[in-house]
């Protein structure tokens, strides 16, 4: 029977500069694809205690059953590796056209192993792998590196790259793909540790499905649902469709949940100067889609830089409007655009970069940190842009900051850790745990640190759940973590699930690959993956002590609209106990043997 999966992975041995196609076995097949494949392979093959920047680490880049098909909103590719930022297992995602092109190569993903003897570019053509000299692009930006690869390998190649930050082992370095980003957790530094500056994919294979008629019917139904959502100006996805992910800043502000000034305040009064609507009004704006996506939330803007030269960028996204906007008290959309571009040039996660800079600015104002050339103060444009460059180059104070907010604070001391807004050294996303108690639990327990992708954000901010209540949040967070993990085996865009009935996922899977699972069985795959990740982290030394929030979260938010929202240690501990209980974990946060058995996870010695 035809299938949308090729049941083939390509293992690339960077040390030997060789590659081999390997079949996907029945056991791995049970993990469906995407994040499932990546997690299973990493847990099987990588010792959790290794140095993530050693050649023992691996990068598993995968796609899923709907990638490269006509199903809408499945453009992304998934990377799983051990994070140099958090030290935990990491999964991260980039949209655009890379995912589909990997599938067009006739493969379900690649596993990068070892480390190349010298800096290389890797070309994957229909599953054939060749290594090429990267010297001409060393030190170059992600944009320049990818342009070089397209010139060298063909304009139709789909590319990924690292910038200088990835070359210099900056812990918040990302992997970029045509402006889309494997953002979180420092995957760029891992690719750099393998001396791979970039990769290009060129595929000519056809993607078929198991049941063409059933699949086409599902696609039509799903596209209609998404089109209806896009036409609805009260639907979040509909708003994204209009001006991008930055559409909702006003709503978050009105609820007093807009993280501002290193998370001290819950309202950024100048939000309407830098949100999606502001960019659409002030600058030339054109909507850009990822592969096959009817939502087109990516906005391309043309603008003039501070020095009046003409420029453009695709973005900023909402999370960056927070991290390089409200969090650092930057109300200038031009500075924000330049800051975003600078992160893109260096190849860094705008989130952890912005949060780390916000902490540094606060420490500057308190007299704890100094820089010879920059005035470390909130809202200082030169400081914001200057610190980005210094982090990317590991220059001066940037060398301290490049290791992440927690490590920077630990080295700095003087009580500065209390206001480093991170979990497991990964910078906070745009949300306020104090204002949204489900987010608090999700940030604290995320396997990759301070992650917003598996938090009940929509329901809390839209009022479907009482945002300030702790009650019942533990099972809700568990459910969303498991469900999102399950759909990340498909490598769905996170927004797909906002509008798509969940019963469509097993239906899509059956029509695409012939694998028949009920929805509860599918969610159980997500739970299995969550527990595999947790076991990896436990073996790496993580436990209850790390499922925590910085001290600032236990002080009231400033500003009227936030109503003094706060978390108490007692309530937080109770919520965490409840969460461990619903997960079937010990009070120290370790999955019990019975839980592992229930999930079909075999114990490793």
């Amino acid at each position, binding site marked *: 029977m035809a299938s949308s999966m090729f049941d083939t992975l390509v293992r690339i041995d960077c040390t030997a500069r060789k590659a081999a196609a390997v079949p996907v076995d029945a056991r791995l097949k049970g993990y469906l694809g995407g994040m499932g494949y990546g997690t299973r392979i990493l847990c099987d093959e990588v010792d959790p205690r290794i140095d993530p920047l050693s050649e023992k680490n691996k990068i598993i880049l995968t796609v899923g059953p709907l990638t490269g098909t006509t199903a809408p909103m499945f453009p992304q590719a998934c990377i799983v590796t051990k994070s140099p930022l958090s030290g935990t297992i990491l999964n991260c995602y980039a949209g655009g056209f890379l995912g589909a092109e990997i599938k067009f190569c006739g493969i379900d993903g690649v596993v990068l192993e070892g480390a190349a003897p010298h800096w290389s570019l890797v070309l994957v053509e229909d599953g054939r792998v060749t290594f090429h000299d990267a010297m001409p692009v060393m030190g170059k930006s992600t944009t320049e590196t990818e342009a070089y690869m397209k010139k060298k390998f063909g304009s139709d190649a789909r590319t990924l790259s690292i910038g200088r930050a990835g070359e210099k082992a900056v812990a918040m370095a990302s992997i970029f793909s045509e402006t889309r980003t494997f953002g979180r957790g420092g995957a760029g530094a891992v690719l750099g540790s393998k001396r791979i500056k970039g990769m290009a994919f060129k595929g*000519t294979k056809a993607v078929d499905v198991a049941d063409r008629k059933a699949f086409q019917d599902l696609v039509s139904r799903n596209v209609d649902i998404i089109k209806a959502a896009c036409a609805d100006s009260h639907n979040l996805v509909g708003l994204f469709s209009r001006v991008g992910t930055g559409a909702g800043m006003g709503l978050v502000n009105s609820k007093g949940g807009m993280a501002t000034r290193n998370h001290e305040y819950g309202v950024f009064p100048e939000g309407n100067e830098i949100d999606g609507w502001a960019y659409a009004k002030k600058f030339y704006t054109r909507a850009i889609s990822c592969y096959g996506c*009817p939502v087109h939330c990516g906005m391309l803007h043309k603008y003039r830089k501070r020095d009046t030269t003409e420029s453009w960028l695709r973005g900023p996204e909402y999370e960056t409007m927070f991290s390089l906007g409200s969090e650092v008290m930057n109300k200038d959309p031009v500075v924000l655009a330049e800051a975003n571009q600078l992160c893109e040039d260096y190849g860094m996660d705008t989130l952890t970069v912005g949060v780390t800079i916000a902490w540094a600015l606060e420490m500057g104002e308190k007299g704890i940190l100094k820089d010879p050339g920059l005035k470390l103060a909130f809202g200082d444009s030169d400081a914001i842009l200057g610190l980005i460059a210094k982090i990317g180059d590991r220059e001066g104070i940037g060398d301290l900051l490049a290791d992440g907010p927690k490590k920077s604070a630990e080295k700095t001391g003087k009580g500065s850790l209390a206001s480093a807004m991170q979990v497991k050294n990964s910078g906070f996303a745009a949300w306020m745990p104090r204002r949204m108690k489900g987010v608090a639990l999700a940030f604290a327990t995320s396997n990759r640190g301070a992650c917003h992708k598996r938090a009940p954000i929509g329901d809390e901010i839209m009022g479907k759940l009482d945002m300030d209540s702790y009650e019942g949040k533990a099972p809700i967070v568990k459910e969303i973590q498991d469900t999102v993990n399950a759909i990340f085996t498909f490598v769905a865009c996170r927004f797909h699930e906002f509008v798509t009935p969940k019963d469509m996922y097993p239906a899509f899977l059956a029509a695409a690959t012939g694998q028949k699972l009920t929805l509860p069985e599918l969610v159980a795959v997500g739970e299995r993956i969550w527990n595999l990740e947790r076991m990896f982290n436990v073996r790496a030394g993580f436990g209850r002590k790390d499922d925590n929030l910085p001290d600032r979260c236990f002080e009231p938010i400033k500003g009227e609209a936030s109503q003094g929202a706060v978390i108490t240690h007692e309530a937080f501990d109770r919520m965490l106990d409840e969460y461990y209980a619903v997960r079937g974990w010990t009070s120290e946060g370790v999955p019990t043997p019975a839980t592992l058995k229930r999930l079909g996870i075999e114990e490793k010695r």
Partner: protein
Amino acid sequence: MGTRFAFDFEKCTECRRCMADCAVVKTGVVRMADSRIDIVRGWPELPEMRVCRFDDCDGHPCIAACPVEAISENGGVVAIDRDACTGCELCVAACPHNAIRMNGGTAMKCDFCGGDPACVKACVTAAIAKAGG
């Protein structure tokens, strides 16, 4: 009416649903090389939409360029007889809209899907539509 597309390049989000659906309609599977339309990114400028202009093409130079008369026009639809095509690529070079691609050794182009183009149905923003339709 006639055989013509209407384009709104500002509305094209470059999602390539038109290409994927074109390939599926023509071959049953997604394979971008089989698409009769090609969207070419030109960031930050607007994309190219490489597909036959039919009635809006001045003189159909592809027909004159073909040495074996494999290309013909019938009721506005310009079509290639791929069995007759020798793969010389002269039509590819002659097309002012870069709308003809080589595919498996012969030239390939849009045939307007018998008057109901799949790309038009696939486009959620109506960046490509049937003119007057």
